[in-house]
């Protein structure tokens, strides 16, 4: 009875402490009025107003969607491109936890966090696009499992993958709050979450491509093939890694004060390694594209506007950045790596938009062009994600371990004792960060 009371008081004490700590952490750090914050506020306010209009009056009030073009940039860019960009998380966790490439360990957390937030916000943007979002739980809990639908698979995988990524990331949250025992437990789940996450990613990265398999005759033959799922999967590898490279170079500047010495010193080495993998997978991708092209006997289409557009995508934004990556790795040229990553990302945007919007019903006389409001809401989603990302990176041990944990890791290696002392119970401490 006494023991029960004891742990109860401990629990209430701890939760009080946590709430106080959380509230104190909610306060902004750094200057409030910066150009970025002003722009972000403006876009978020605008986006919120437009979202209210959208739910009050229907999709037609803010989008240019039509009976001919049921999917616009909210799907084509936010969801399909956004998820490809978030592919870095499964690739990096594969390299670090499965292949045990320790070199990349310092960037695991930031990559997983980026991936997680991308899924929450960009896949979350799907809710804006759903006509009847209150029924979104139907495929999850309802008695209406449409198992023959690729969309069913994608929906489940989004949900499960968000959970897997959150588990992968959760030790950082536990460290931030200072819950050591919780952290130890969460850490023990990591490998399982990683394996589960990679499997899910394989399936839904390709699944996003498989969504378009039934749009045969609606997508230009240069982009439609039964291999879309494989092309989407392979391209998500270098799309994700290019995003990791670009984000890395940005956070080297923006979050300079948060980056551990370890990550800082190994950053260049990591970038070169990633660039090498990008170059390799891009050659594979280019080769696959070529195979699909030759196999489909699409020579005739090349000499048409859509054909030139196809060449721009495949040569300008696959082959050239691929070559650039190769050269950059050879000469250790970091600005070339950065340019290659930007070109690659543009190429991915082009590819995903081509399949979902641009080459979709290329024969229609009245084409879909996104309205400014669709773009504004997309920007609002991106800015909301960036703000949350900044908030987390500035507080939680993402780009570096907290000093406390660093010591513990050292101790653990020497003593091999994992929080066994009973006094540990009392030691739930709040991080001073």
């Amino acid at each position, binding site marked *: 009875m006494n023991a029960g009371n004891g742990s109860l008081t401990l629990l209430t004490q701890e939760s009080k402490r946590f709430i106080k700590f959380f509230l104190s952490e909610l306060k902004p750090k750094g200057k409030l009025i910066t150009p970025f914050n002003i722009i972000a506020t403006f876009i978020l306010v605008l986006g919120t107003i437009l979202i209210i209009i959208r739910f009050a009056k229907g999709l037609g009030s803010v989008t240019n969607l039509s009976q001919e073009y049921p999917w616009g940039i909210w799907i084509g860019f936010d969801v399909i491109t956004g998820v490809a960009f978030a592919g870095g998380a499964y690739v990096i966790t594969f390299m670090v936890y499965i292949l045990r490439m320790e070199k990349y360990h310092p960037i695991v957390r930031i990559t997983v966090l980026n991936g997680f937030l991308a899924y929450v916000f960009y896949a979350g943007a799907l809710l804006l696009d759903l006509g009847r979002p209150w029924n979104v739980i139907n495929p999850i809990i309802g008695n209406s499992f*449409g198992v023959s639908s690729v969309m069913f698979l994608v929906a489940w995988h989004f949900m499960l993958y968000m959970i897997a990524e959150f588990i992968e990331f959760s030790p950082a949250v536990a460290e931030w709050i200072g819950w050591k025992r919780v952290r130890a437990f969460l850490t023990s789940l*990591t490998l399982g979450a990683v394996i589960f996450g990679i499997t899910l990613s394989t399936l839904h990265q390709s699944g996003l491509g498989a969504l378009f398999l039934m749009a*045969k005759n609606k997508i230009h033959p240069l982009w439609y093939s039964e291999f879309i799922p494989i092309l989407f999967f392979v391209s998500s590898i270098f799309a994700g890694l290019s995003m990791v490279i670009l984000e890395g170079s940005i956070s080297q500047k923006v979050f300079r004060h948060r980056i551990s010495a370890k990550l800082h010193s190994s950053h260049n080495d990591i970038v070169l390694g990633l660039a090498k993998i990008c170059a390799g997978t891009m050659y594979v991708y280019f080769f696959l594209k070529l195979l699909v092209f030759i196999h489909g006997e699409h020579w005739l289409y090349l000499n048409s506007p859509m054909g030139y557009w196809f060449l721009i995508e495949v040569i300008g934004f696959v082959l050239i950045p691929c070559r650039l990556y190769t050269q950059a790795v050879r000469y250790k040229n970091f600005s070339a790596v950065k340019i290659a990553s930007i070109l690659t990302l543009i190429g991915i945007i082009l590819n995903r938009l081509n399949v979902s919007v641009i080459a979709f019903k290329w024969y229609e006389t009245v084409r879909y062009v996104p309205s400014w409001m669709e773009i504004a809401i997309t920007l609002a989603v991106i800015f909301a994600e960036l703000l949350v990302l900044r908030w987390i990176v500035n507080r939680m041990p993402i780009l570096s371990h907290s000093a406390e944990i660093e010591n513990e890791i050292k101790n653990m290696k020497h003593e091999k004792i994992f929080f066994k002392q009973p006094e540990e119970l009392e030691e739930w401490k709040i991080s001073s960060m």
Partner: protein
Amino acid sequence: MERRDFLRTLGMMGAATLPCKNLRAEAQSDEKEFHGILVDTTRCVGCQSCEEACAEANGLPEPNIDDAEPGVEVKTSTDQFSSINCYETDVGEVYVKKQCMHCNQPACAAACLTKAMFKTKEGPVIWREDKCMGCRYCMLSCPFDMPKFEYDSPIPKIQKCTMCWERLQEGEQPACVETCPEEALTFGKRRELLDEAKLRIYNDPDDYVHHIYGEHEAGGTGYLYLSAAPFEQLGFRTDLGTTAYPEFTKDFLYAVPIILTLWPTFLLALNKAIKKESEESEGEL
């Protein structure tokens, strides 16, 4: 390494797919007695009374009755589930009724993740309001572009012809069939309609092109069309092929359970195989 593993998995997937024939994703076949409607365009005079009857039966606004002219395409919409179009063809002006084709294996129903789009046993493809989440994947998938979405409503519905599903349950015929003064529309079991269509071609071989649109298109449809003019002149897509649309995603869906079981095993094995070299820092984020 990654690519080799990927290809290896693909190989395994392929091998494992072979014995999986009965995994078929909800394949509906001709064997069930689907009902359908036979449209004989040689009999249609373009009076558009079917449009009126359709609007009345479905509680839709009065359709425009004088809009069937050559060169003007009247698409179905959320307010009009059936439309008569006029086409200038080799045999003169031909009127054609357009609406949901009620495919045997509908792309829209296979695409629907909540089974809101639903192929009934009787044949009509219907939409169920309480299930739909409005993703519009049915619209993307439908080869005939028939599901229409209410973009201007905060509580939007997907609208299209349901072959008067409610009337059928009460033993009545679809409103358009009942109204047609020229007997251009015939309602019945699809199998019998096909026989009837073939009989008409056989009896008057010079009056028809020897093709029944919908017999094999997109795996076969509930609506069947007879015509004196080639179907491409009647605004029909003739490039759809004879494969049922759900078949296009079948291979991918086959691969899913295989990857779901093989991939984790493989990844875990890989993880354990590499363990010896660096035993420290397991699971350390």
